[in-house]
């Protein structure tokens, strides 16, 4: 009995879930902030900055505002983080193939990753703060417009491989990188990820100059820390997934580092380069172009597959 539980616990708390994914997330957040700072000719944060932020937030007093459902207020960050941690089990983190797999785990992973945005939206709607409410509305709007293209873009490689299982898709794409055959899908996936994570220029749901901190305006201390960690983990998982499916799979830690960091740099460049889009602009952009392009890509792939057979 103990023999079976211990490895499961270890995989959840140490590797690839839990500790490893936290530390990786922090490292990537640091890289993100540091690179952005360098692009803006600043020095940027020190290497331990994300860790200090999280520790400080965890040690801070947490107040549950009036007018909110206290249970929901406390539970949502936990659910969001738990979703992200669970998703870590199905993703080839650090290039050490996914720990668990079953047919269709891609879909489950994607669902688990959407959980964070969903929780963010509900958290905003739960607090009767005006900024939070607007933030929640925007978060949901963005959820609907960015999850779909992201999902479709990731299903492209799955379709080629003829499987919904992450490691099988990875294996089928190893010989020929999917990015070469489905460049549009790749671009949509990267931009979809930025939108999903609410990073600039798609950060309308938490646009500081309009609605302070969006859904999270009323959160502080532990809740904020958990949401924050959920976000950085989702960043890591998102780029891992894209790298695994589009960039020829991840088979060693070195492989993982090179490909994910390259993707991160692309994302940071986009962050630094553009002004924030209004929510109607970012949504319009995706429903009008993103989704359409992916569908075109799909049609192409189907056609090509038909010819090949």
């Amino acid at each position, binding site marked *: 009995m103990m023999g079976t539980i211990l490895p499961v616990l270890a995989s959840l708390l140490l590797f690839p879930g839990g500790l490893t994914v936290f530390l990786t997330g922090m490292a990537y957040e640091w890289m993100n902030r540091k690179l952005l700072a360098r*692009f803006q000719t600043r020095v940027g944060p020190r290497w331990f900055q994300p860790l200090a932020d999280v520790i400080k937030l965890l040690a801070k007093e947490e107040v549950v505002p009036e007018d909110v459902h206290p249970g929901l207020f406390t539970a949502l960050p936990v659910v969001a983080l738990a979703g992200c941690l669970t998703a870590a089990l199905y993703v080839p983190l650090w290039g050490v193939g996914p720990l668990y797999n079953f047919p269709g785990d891609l879909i489950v992973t994607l669902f688990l990753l959407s959980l964070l945005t969903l929780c963010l939206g509900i958290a905003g709607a739960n607090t*009767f703060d*005006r900024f939070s409410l607007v933030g929640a509305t925007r978060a949901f709007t963005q959820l609907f417009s960015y999850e779909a293209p992201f999902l479709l873009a990731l299903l492209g490689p799955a379709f080629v491989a003829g499987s919904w299982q992450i490691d099988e898709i990875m294996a089928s794409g190893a010989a020929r990188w999917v990015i070469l055959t489905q460049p549009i899908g790749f671009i949509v996936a990267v931009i979809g990820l930025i939108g999903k994570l609410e990073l600039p220029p798609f950060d309308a749901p938490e646009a500081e*100059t*309009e609605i302070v901190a969006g859904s999270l305006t009323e959160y502080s201390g532990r809740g904020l820390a958990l949401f924050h960690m959920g976000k950085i983990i989702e960043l890591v998982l998102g780029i891992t997934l894209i790298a695994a499916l589009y960039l020829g799979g991840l088979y060693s830690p070195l492989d993982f580092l090179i490909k994910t960091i390259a993707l991160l740099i692309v994302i940071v460049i986009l962050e*630094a380069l553009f*002004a924030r889009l209004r929510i*109607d602009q970012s949504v319009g952009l995706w429903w009008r172009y993103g989704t359409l392009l992916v569908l075109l890509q799909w049609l192409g792939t189907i056609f090509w597959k038909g010819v090949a057979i």
Partner: protein
Amino acid sequence: MEKTEHKKGFTIPIGPQHPALKEPGHFRITVDGEIVTDVDVRLGYAHRGIEKAAEARSWVQNLYLFERVCGICSHIHAMAYCLGVERLAGVEAPPRAQAIRVLVAELERIHSHLLWLGVAAHEAGFDTLFMYSWRDRETIMDVLERFSGNRVNYSANILGGVKYDLDDEFVQFMCEGLDYLETRSEYYLEVVTTDAMFLQRTQNIGVMTRSQAELLGTVGPTARASNVHRDIRYEAPYSAYKQFPISIVLDQRGDLEARFVVRIKELFESYRLIRRILEELPEGDLAARMPRKIAEGETVSRVEAPRGELFYFIKSNGSDTPERVRVRTPTICNMMSVVKLAIGHQLADVPMILAGIDPCFSCNDRMFRVHLDQSVYANVGPLKG
């Protein structure tokens, strides 16, 4: 937090503490979804009662008080005050002092416009531009610091002239700074007119036609972006602007992009003027002697601050303190336009439109708290772009 449902719609407060406003103002924005249906302004959070305090202080002490009406345009406030008091006393500052005053005023304009560019970019979520323009602004801050010893309230004016002189080393330092800034400004002009993503946030947003701008009484770059010829330096040259004329920068479009373009183009005009002043800097004294008591009389002193026309009305009763000093800052003239322009736009555009007039609440609030009512503007007509 009170419950938020209103009969009229959903109200979002911006300020007095809000990331978009580095200064305290309070806007109540009623939205229908993301569309703004009503805007209400309340000011007065920075109202200190300066005009009353001025009546109890001597003419010289007041110089330092008015310099601190606003930290961004401190020189121009002091300059307007000095020009007015000198006119009342019948004293004219020596030509060299006049030229140095104008030179510092133009340096201040450069600093203010670059500051504004950064803040406006930040409102649009374009932090890279914000960082770049503020990095370059440090050049001008260095110049000002080297000139006067302080970065912000440089206190170059005294009644009757200026305190500091220019030396060759400083002029050299300043010219290098200006050369650098000129190339940077060209780059910024290119960015704000060609960056497609940024244009999405500025083009055809907050359009104000010429007649609307006139009716609302806007001043400064906000008015000039709507093709209104209103620049005191050009209309009614004061101080050294008579010898060193400036050409007026106008734009036809009246949208946010035009306001960016006008302000950046004004930078080039400032660089040109400063170089010209340095070439033809008159020799002579730095200050004329001023009497302690100022002769009885009233005068109006109008100067062009970075944000628009600054209006001082000074009345002396012949004693060593002023009878009345009335300060009308440019922001209050332009504030009306924000209220009108914002309606019908997206919520996300409101900070941009607000930033578009370059509001300065501490200037503004030395006096006001305004409650604007829409019905008053009914005859202005819709201003949606």
